[in-house]
Each structure stands twice: as structure tokens, then as C-alpha cells.
């Protein structure tokens, strides 16, 4: 098994410039996080709002640079702050955003949304670009009739499928999913998660899946990292983390998840009776 992406002690600080009445300060969004993901596996990053999950996602997707630490993608060290990124490196990592209503340009037809990555990164003729876009559209469960429509004509689930299709157009090896289903309703969540699982098998994709929803994580993850205030407080295989959480925050997090299995319902009723 080859390692697709590896992070070593990644740090990201934000400098908040001071104004007339307040001093400048530094926010430590990510404080030295390390991880590595093997090909075809899924690493889930879990944590509450503002714990640095999305910042980490933007660093891994090469949108923002890290303040310190190394990011190694397919054995190559990447630092966008030092050297400009090659087109080849760009295509290896793609991202899917949380909000499907904000991730598509409202003035671009779906066909153009999908063909654009190829237009920028390859010298493929227009007809071939369109053929590939059409094929990808079918792969994510949409039809050729959707090709010439605008984003506002689609539902949230459909838009997220379009976003997935766009991310896959360049045959990336790593896909960063920044809470890809949290803006969707429950039945659509399941459809999109199934689609993601199918695509992972088909293209041998590596996922970094960012979420705050533990039931989703339990379904899709191979390994789990729990982040708390910019630090990775727990990191291990799914079984290890879910069955034997070490850190207090992880325990609290699991305790806060509603459970619906028969034993826990019985325990809850017993507790209620005892209290009454």
C-alpha cells in the first residue's frame, strides 16, 4: 500500500491585525497536526465548529499554505508559499465543499462547469471535453438533459453530485470532502454517501472526509482523527477510536450522539424509572 498524502506537524496561524482600540493577535487555527492516508482509504476528521477542520482541508487542497510543517503528496513535498504549483500537482487533489449552493458559479451552465477543469489543464479538443463531461454526469447519476442547465435549476443533492463530478473530471488521486453531506437532508445524505463509496471503489480514490456527524463517519471512514482546538487529540482506526476512545473530548463527543439501539433504549428507560 502506498501513502497518498502525509502531513507532518502542520501549523496554521492567522494574524489578526490590530486596530485603533485592540491589539494585533495571532490565532492558532491548526497546531501541529500529523496524519497519513494510504491509497483507497478514507481518513475522517471529526471535531466541533472552529476546531480547524476546514482550515486543514484548505491546506491539504493547496488553496492556503501552512505556516509550518510539511505536506507530502504522492511522495513529493509541496509548499505553495515557496514554489508555484505545477498543473500536474493541481490535478491530484480536488475538493468538495460543504455548501452545494455556494460551490457552483450561478452563471455557468453545468456542461461548462464540468468541462472547465479539462479546458484549463489539458489541450483536449472541445468535443472530447464535452463527451467526458457527459459521461461523468451519467456516472454521478444525472442525465444528458441536465447538461445545458444552470445551477439554480437543481436541488441540493443534485448540486452536490455536480460538484463531485467536477472534482473527478481531472482524475484526482485524493479527494478532500469538507462536510459534503451536512447541508443535505437525511435521505439525500445516504444517496450521496453511497455514490461516494461507489466512486471510491471504481476509481481507487483516497478520501479525506471532514465531518461533525459521527454516524456518517462510522459509515465511511477507515481511520478517524478527532480535532479539538486545532490539535489532533485522537487518531486511530475506526474500530479503535469508536470502541475505545482515549481523550476526554472524544468521550464527550460520543456521549452526545443519540443512540437508537435496543440496549441503550432499555438503559435509558431503566434510568428514567429509577429516577421516578
Amino acid at each position, binding site marked *: 500500500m502506498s501513502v497518498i498524502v502525509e502531513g507532518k506537524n502542520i501549523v496554521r496561524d492567522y494574524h489578526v491585525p490590530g486596530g485603533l482600540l485592540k491589539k494585533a493577535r495571532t490565532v492558532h487555527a491548526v497546531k501541529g497536526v500529523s496524519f497519513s492516508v494510504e491509497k483507497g482509504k478514507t481518513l475522517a476528521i471529526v471535531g466541533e465548529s472552529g476546531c480547524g477542520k476546514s482550515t486543514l482541508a*484548505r491546506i491539504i*487542497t*493547496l*488553496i492556503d499554505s501552512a505556516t509550518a510543517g510539511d505536506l507530502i503528496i504522492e511522495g513529493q513535498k509541496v509548499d505553495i508559499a515557496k514554489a508555484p*504549483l505545477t*498543473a500536474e500537482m*493541481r*490535478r491530484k*487533489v*480536488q*475538493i468538495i*465543499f*460543504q*455548501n452545494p449552493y*455556494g*460551490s*457552483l*458559479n*450561478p*452563471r455557468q451552465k453545468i456542461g461548462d462547469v464540468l468541462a*472547465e*477543469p479539462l479546458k*484549463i*489543464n489539458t489541450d483536449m479538443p472541445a468535443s472530447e471535453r464535452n463527451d467526458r463531461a457527459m459521461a461523468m454526469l451519467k456516472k454521478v447519476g444525472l442525465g444528458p438533459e441536465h447538461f445545458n442547465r444552470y445551477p*439554480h435549476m437543481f436541488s441540493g443533492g443534485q448540486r452536490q453530485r455536480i*460538484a463531485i463530478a*467536477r472534482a473527478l473530471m*481531472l482524475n484526482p488521486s485524493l479527494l478532500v470532502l469538507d462536510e459534503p453531506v451536512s447541508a443535505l437532508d437525511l435521505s439525500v445524505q445516504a444517496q450521496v454517501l453511497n455514490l461516494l463509496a461507489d466512486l471510491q471503489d471504481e476509481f481507487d480514490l483516497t478520501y479525506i472526509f471532514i465531518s461533525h456527524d459521527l454516524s456518517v463517519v462510522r459509515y465511511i471512514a477507515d481511520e478517524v482523527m478527532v480535532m479539538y482546538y486545532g490539535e489532533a487529540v485522537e487518531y486511530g482506526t475506526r474500530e479503535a477510536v469508536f470502541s475505545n476512545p482515549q481523550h476526554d473530548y472524544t468521550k464527550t463527543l460520543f456521549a452526545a450522539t443519540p443512540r437508537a439501539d435496543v440496549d441503550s433504549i432499555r438503559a435509558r428507560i431503566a434510568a428514567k424509572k429509577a429516577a421516578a
Partner: protein
Amino acid sequence: MSRLFLRSPEAVAGTIILALLVAMALAAPWLFPRDPLAIAGPAMLPPFQDWTIPLGTDRLGRDVLSGLFHGARTSLAVGLAAAATSIVVGVLVGTIAGFAGGWVDEVLMRVTDAFQTVPGFLLALAFVSVAGPSLGVVVVAIALGAWTQPARITRAEVLSIRERDYVAGARVIGMHPAEIAFREVLPNALPPVLALSSVIVAAAVLTEAALSFLGLGDPNRVTWGGMIAEGRAVLRSAPFLSIVPGIALVLTVLGVYLVGEGAVEASAVKRGNA
């Protein structure tokens, strides 16, 4: 969109006024093939006396109606050209400032501030008196004072749009920053600026008239402002010389405002439905 637009009475009234003005401007060379600055009859002929010169003549015996038609050409041409120039310049500056950020933003916005602190009309006046009155100079002079507002509005829109996910998405697929700014961000920042365009056109028409009134318009062209200035000297004995072009000016500005209002309302309804 066009159906929504025509539903509001303001828009219909504005469209009719503007259509009449455009028809006047386009028909002027056919209806009045003679030079509007040439003498057409006795001086200071009051309106409705001679039906070959229905609106009478001015102090030098020039046909007022002919001047009105030819003046519509100048007013509309200068108004539209000045508005177009200021919007294009403003949108470019605003997009670059908002998207680039940092010191580029800082420099461009301070330049904008500098232009905003000088009254637009004073700026136009100074520019025309230095560069000499001609149609092109008048257009630039008006644009000089009018581009700051679209620049500020565009920058504000761009600042919010550049943080959207689709802009980050474009970066991830490797799009060039200039391409992101002008293909992903700019088209989505335009609607509020276009809503402003009617105000800018109306202001440009008025500024042009004011410049001509002060004798800083192109001397080889008839302008409404110039006609009003011409009539000022004989305001008591022949008030129609100032009133007739004055009414034309009021109607033009009114027409432009009404159309702008209608367009904004129609787009608001459309957005409300979407």
C-alpha cells in the same frame, strides 16, 4: 424579464420617453438636413407663428426645433458614452482592488478617495478648460468624476464574492487568478452596478448640459445646455428660448430614471421568485 419590466407603469412611461428621444436623435439629419446652426428666418420669432419654423428662432434667427432635434443627438451620445466609460473604468478598478487586496487595493482605493473628494463638476470644468472643448474631452471630463461610485460598489461586491466556494473551486482546478477575477467573480458582481447606471447616465446628461451652459461644450455642435445659455440673455422678452430645451432636458433625465427604476424593480421581482 422583459414582461416583468413592462408590467410597471414607470418602466412603460420611461421607455416611451426614451424611445421618442432616440427617434428624435436618429431622425434629426433627415427631418432637418440643414445645419442647425445656420440662420433659418427672422431673429427672435416666437413659437407657433410660422409653421415652417414651429418653435420659432433664437437671437440669431436659428431654428429652435431643429436645434432641439440635433441637441438630442449630443445629449444622448455624451450621456451614454460618459456613463459607459465611467462604468467600465469603475468596474475594472473595483474588481482589481477587491480581488487583489493588499497594497494594490490600498493604492487604488486611495486614488478613488482622492477623486471623490473633488466635486465631480469642478473636475470636469477644470479638465475641459485645460484640454479644450470637444465631444471626446467632454465625455472624459464627465467620466472623470463619475467612475468612483461604480468602483466602490464593485469592490464591495467582489470582496464578498471572492470568498465564495466556487471561487476557491476555480483555484483548485488551476484557473489563472486574472481569469478567476474576470470570469468567475466579475459577472456575479455586476447587477448592483448596472442598477446604478441609470443614475449615472442621468447625471452625465445634466453635467454635459451644465458644461455647455457655461460655454464649455463643443462649439460646433448644438446642445441643449448651449441653447439654454443662449436664451438666458433674453429671458424676459423670449422665455421660450430657455424653456423649450429645458423641458427636453427634464424629460430625458426623467425617462432615464424611470427606465432604471423599472429595471431594478423587474430584477428584484425576478430574484424574489427564484
